[in-house]
């Protein structure tokens, strides 16, 4: 302890205690418990619930041999990559850029529509998305109207359905981040480039995007982390099915722990998810620190 913080100094930090306790007990505690429990055969009920045994790396070995795990890892990467990194991020940027060129009324109305999908409780959004993608839902009605095929999305293309649903649900966040970032760009910069004869696309590529580089990186990290944790949307729409075709890591962890009662194995899956989250979390913080320098 540095000399500056004597007894009285530490006492001044007493008000931090309730927050610290909550964070330690309910966030840090479970994270450590997860890593520890993933080395045991803890069960939901029965003998293994009362007297869990230490099984070492057995759960992780099982993970590597279980054909569902690599599939679910791949589906998670696909889900995050397609719906967050590409979908939400690019669409959010496009919306924010378009809004600067549109009339105020149009951009306000569209902004409201985009934000509405984001503000709705997740279970309601999930029900709406389920109805939208169901066999005789709105999407197929539209496709039928255009004379196109009407697949049963939730059975034939479950990943496409949940990816699109998550883009619909989450784009508002990226849009708001990019709107704020674009508003921070001084108008003189764009005007100067315009004087030099730079067209719209050139200005976007060589001036606007480099200037909001920091926001792009931050946004990518945050949408990745948010999408990594998505459970309700997938659970309601497909429940991970059919035959694990849309089982991402959160769904797999839930199924193993609660449906099959294997807490030890479920926490091993959760631990992998936590590690992936930690990598992105640390990356995000490093980005922010660099931005402050």
């Amino acid at each position, binding site marked *: 302890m540095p000399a500056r913080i004597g007894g009285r100094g530490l006492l*001044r*930090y007493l*008000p931090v205690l*309730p*927050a610290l306790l*909550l964070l330690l007990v*309910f*966030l840090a505690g*479970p994270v450590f*418990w997860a890593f520890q429990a993933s080395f045991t055969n*803890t069960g939901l009920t029965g003998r293994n*619930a009362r007297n869990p045994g230490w099984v070492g790396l057995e759960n992780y070995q099982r993970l590597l041999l279980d054909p569902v795990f690599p599939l679910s890892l791949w589906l998670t990467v696909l889900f995050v990559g397609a719906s967050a990194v590409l979908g939400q991020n690019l669409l959010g940027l*496009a*919306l924010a850029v378009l*809004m600067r*060129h*549109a*009339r105020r009324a149009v951009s306000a*109305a*569209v902004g409201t*529509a985009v934000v*509405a999908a984001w*503000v*709705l*409780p*997740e*279970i*309601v959004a999930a*029900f*709406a998305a389920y*109805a*939208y993608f*169901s066999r*005789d839902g*709105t999407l197929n*009605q539209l496709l039928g109207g255009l004379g196109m095929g009407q697949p049963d999305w939730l059975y034939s293309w479950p990943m496409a359905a949940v990816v699109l649903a998550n883009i*619909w649900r989450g784009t508002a966040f990226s849009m*708001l*981040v990019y709107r704020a970032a674009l508003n921070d760009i001084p108008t003189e910069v764009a005007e100067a480039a*315009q004087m030099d004869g730079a*067209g*719209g696309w050139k200005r976007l590529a060589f001036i606007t995007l480099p200037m909001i580089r920091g926001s792009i990186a*931050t946004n990518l990290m945050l949408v990745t*982390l948010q999408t990594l944790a998505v*459970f*309700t949307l997938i659970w309601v729409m497909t429940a991970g099915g059919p035959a694990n075709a849309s089982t991402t*890591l*959160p769904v797999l*962890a*839930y199924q193993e*722990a609660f449906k099959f009662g294997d*807490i030890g194995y479920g926490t091993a899956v*959760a631990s992998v*998810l*936590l590690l992936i*989250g930690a990598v992105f979390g640390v990356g*995000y*913080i490093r980005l*922010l*620190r660099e931005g402050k320098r």
Partner: protein
Amino acid sequence: MTAPARASGTALVEKAPRPRRPGNSRVSPADVALLVLGACFVLPLLWLVLASFDADAGHETRVPAALTLENFAAVITPGLLLQPLWNSLLLSAGTATATLAAAVLAAYPLSRYRSRFNTPFMYAVLLGTCLPITAIMVPVYGLFVQLELLDSMPATMLFMAATALPMAIWMTRNFMDAVPVSLEEAAWVDGASRMTALRTIVLPLMRQGLAVVFIFVFIQAWGNFFVPFVLLLSEAKQPAAVSIFSFFGQHGAVAYGQLAAFSILYSLPVLALYVVVARGAGSSFALSGAVRG
């Protein structure tokens, strides 16, 4: 609709960069693109609204043959809707109150004292915001079993408060940093303690910021499905997010009209609260506080 055709015509003619907010009455390509994207965002919500007024609604989106309030009447019963909504209110208000109290207390020393403890603590907290919460639900369940806290409303509130805390601490500290210390100094001269100064001078000045944090946490808690789904078992304690799922999501024959009506009634409070935040403090303001730290 002739607007899109006319707009694409103007797109060909108008090569020169246009001012940011065109005041003329012509529809720009940006307007058209935005409206098309906006329509895609509205479509999934259309079903929700139309089905709620349709006596025999199914998956498909259609204008009801006869508008009816039957669905709303059918779900507005104490057991089906009112008790779960009351539970949601308790859970969300309790969570938001606990979060705000802990966040304000923690933010005060972090905002007012200089110490080498501050920065590492704030970054550790920031790492907490990155935690994929769905990944720790299995260990949290295990923790709740061991502490015999399963099916306890207060314990669920505290856990939800802990998950909201990292973000809340960052936002609250930012709002508190904006209140000049010089205002408190007068109170100290008069012999007031730090905590008295916080209560009588700082908090009233950051009222609006506190409201933003409270509503932010409230909205999140209100919409949260997964946490109460795992931690609250008895039907009498379940919030609307869970009861709507167990009522409509798991049983065979689904009354879609009632599901839609329930969803709308359940969503309205948070939509209204979001409007309050967006109007009062500016959504981008609140968001930038949340995102940039």
